[in-house]
């Protein structure tokens, strides 16, 4: 209600909160590029509702209080009409009371903590595949086709990854697989203790979930430790394909995003992004790009920036995004297919697609 007059202005204002400083800025800066890229493309095509789109960008440093402050400023001072962000689930959590209070839609295709989505916040639209959802979709298939008897998880100690470890451990043991859970703190350089432990336990499959940077380091040390078992992760980071090609040969993925997924939306996105930044995108970049796709599509259909109308339009989303096809339920939770894939000889290929049936 506080920005009822904003409609009259000649611009559509969208607030973007990403970690632009600190360790998380590795992802934050690339995500910001994707958001800028699609906005520039839409503006070049004449914008939306006859108006140009202007991004208001703030650094939330992936921290709760900083992200909340940024949102407070974007909403009340800059008068943005929709929000994208803020990467880490704890950071996004700081945004939720604010969007609820000012009734501004927050579209998020990245944050994975399902507790956020379960809050019943009318203005939070979350549509990445939650870890629990992926686990439900992919674990039975993986256990069967990879013949898993004894597994271990190795994750970085960060919000989404810890949750991943938990839900996978539960899902796997429900199917009679013996599992041990392992996590390491952010910034770990030396993995030798974990690897020694794993070697002793000798699991046949290792489920890993960590940032692309730690991943390269971990995978190299894993290789050096002489590990011969199978490897499973959620998403393939392009950095792994480039820098740890030898180490991840044969690795499986229960993926949200697959670079080579052959859809027009994804092809355009991947090529544009590569052209713009010289790097291939991965899941979190795709997640923010998808958020923008969803938001722009809803604005077009709503024909107005009036919040209530925008909300209705978002809920009715039914479109192709980079990661598949998306629909929302009445609570603003969305999803798409999970793609079981394998990396072999330098290329990733989808082995099997498991359809989304709800969270």
């Amino acid at each position, binding site marked *: 209600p506080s920005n009822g007059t904003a409609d009259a202005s000649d611009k559509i204002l969208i607030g973007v909160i990403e970690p632009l400083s600190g360790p998380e800025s590795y992802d934050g800066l690339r995500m910001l590029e994707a958001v800028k890229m699609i906005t520039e493309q839409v503006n070049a095509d004449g914008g939306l509702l006859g108006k140009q789109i202007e991004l208001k960008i703030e650094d939330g440093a992936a921290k709760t209080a900083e992200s909340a402050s940024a949102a407070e400023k974007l909403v009340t001072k800059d008068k943005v009409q929709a929000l994208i962000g803020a990467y880490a689930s704890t950071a996004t959590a700081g945004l939720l009371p604010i969007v609820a209070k000012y009734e501004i839609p927050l579209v998020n295709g990245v944050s994975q903590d399902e507790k956020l989505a379960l809050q019943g916040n009318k203005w939070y639209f979350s549509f990445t595949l939650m870890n629990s959802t992926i686990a439900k979709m992919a674990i039975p298939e993986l256990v069967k086709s990879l013949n898993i008897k004894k597994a271990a998880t190795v994750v970085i100690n960060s919000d989404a990854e810890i949750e991943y470890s938990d839900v996978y451990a539960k899902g796997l043991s429900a199917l009679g697989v013996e599992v041990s859970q392992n996590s390491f703190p952010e910034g770990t350089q*030396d993995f030798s*203790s974990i690897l020694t432990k794993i070697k002793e336990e000798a699991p046949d499959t290792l489920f890993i979930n960590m940032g692309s940077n730690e991943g390269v380091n971990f995978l*190299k040390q894993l290789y050096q430790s002489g590990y011969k078992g199978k490897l499973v992760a959620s998403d393939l980071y392009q950095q792994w394909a480039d820098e740890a090609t030898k180490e991840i040969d044969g690795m499986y993925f229960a993926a949200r995003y697959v670079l080579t997924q052959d859809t027009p939306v994804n092809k355009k996105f991947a090529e544009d992004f590569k052209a713009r930044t010289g790097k291939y995108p991965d899941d979190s970049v795709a997640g923010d790009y998808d958020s923008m796709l969803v938001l722009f599509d809803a604005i077009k259909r709503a024909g107005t920036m009036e919040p209530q109308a925008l909300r209705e339009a978002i809920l009715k989303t039914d479109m192709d995004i980079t990661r598949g096809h998306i629909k929302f339920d009445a609570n603003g939770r969305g999803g798409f297919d999970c793609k079981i894939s394998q990396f072999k000889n330098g290329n990733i290929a989808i082995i099997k697609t498991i359809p989304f049936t709800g969270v």
Partner: protein
Amino acid sequence: MVELSQQIFNGLVIGSVYILMAGGLTIIFGVMNIVNFAHGEFYMLGAYLAYVLINVLNLNFFAGLLMASVLVGLIGIIVERILDHFGDRGETEYVYYTILATVGLSMIIANTVNVVAGPSQHQIISGIATDPIMVGPIIVTQFKILVIVMAFSISAIFGLFLKYSRYGKAMRATFENKEAAASVGIKVSTINMVTFAIGSFLVSIGGILVGSMFNIYPFMGITANLKAFAVVILGGLGSFGGAVLGGIMLGVIESITAGYLNVGYKDAVSFILIILVLMFKPSGLFNKISK
């Protein structure tokens, strides 16, 4: 048993790096009474410089290691010249302000590298084989052996220098009392500069070894610094020999905790050790002289 011996070996490797980090920190504290909160940033800076020299400019690994560390030593001298200004503020104030200044410095260095070089992680290519070799039941790599050998020989050389050489004695004298050191003809400012340079040089070598054994990233200095503090406290502030023993001890204890308890608590171990040591033996485990 196999796992235990492997964990102890792992602890020795990382402990060797701790020796280089903490050895530098402890002599800077000893000579200048500065707790250098930017010490970890020199570690990171050394690794980044070596990365540029070795990976980008294709220098030989050892040449790059030496050059980068000398450069970091020179940067250390500049920093020392600035911190020198706090000298006339009285003793407690001096400790207080040099800590704050180095906290500021560490923020400047780490975040600037993060912006300029980007937050991604890299590995320094040493060209030395990293393939697993079995030594009995333990898996080692050539590089890890090199790390242990380097750390121990460098600290042995430096320890002997400090104990017996004329300059080493002058350094220890400056530790204790600047006016008195000046009164016997020691050029205190030179000693301070040399100390800071050596301390920074040592930690830079540690950073480079870690960077080619594992990886480098802009904020790698922060945890490293806290580790170095733990080692220095274990060994006694200002005691180089203590740093060597403390480094090995922390490395091994961490590895064992990680292996048998929980990897997540590995880093908490060092902090709990600090508190325990200071509760029961504030002068450090290996320090004979109590203050």
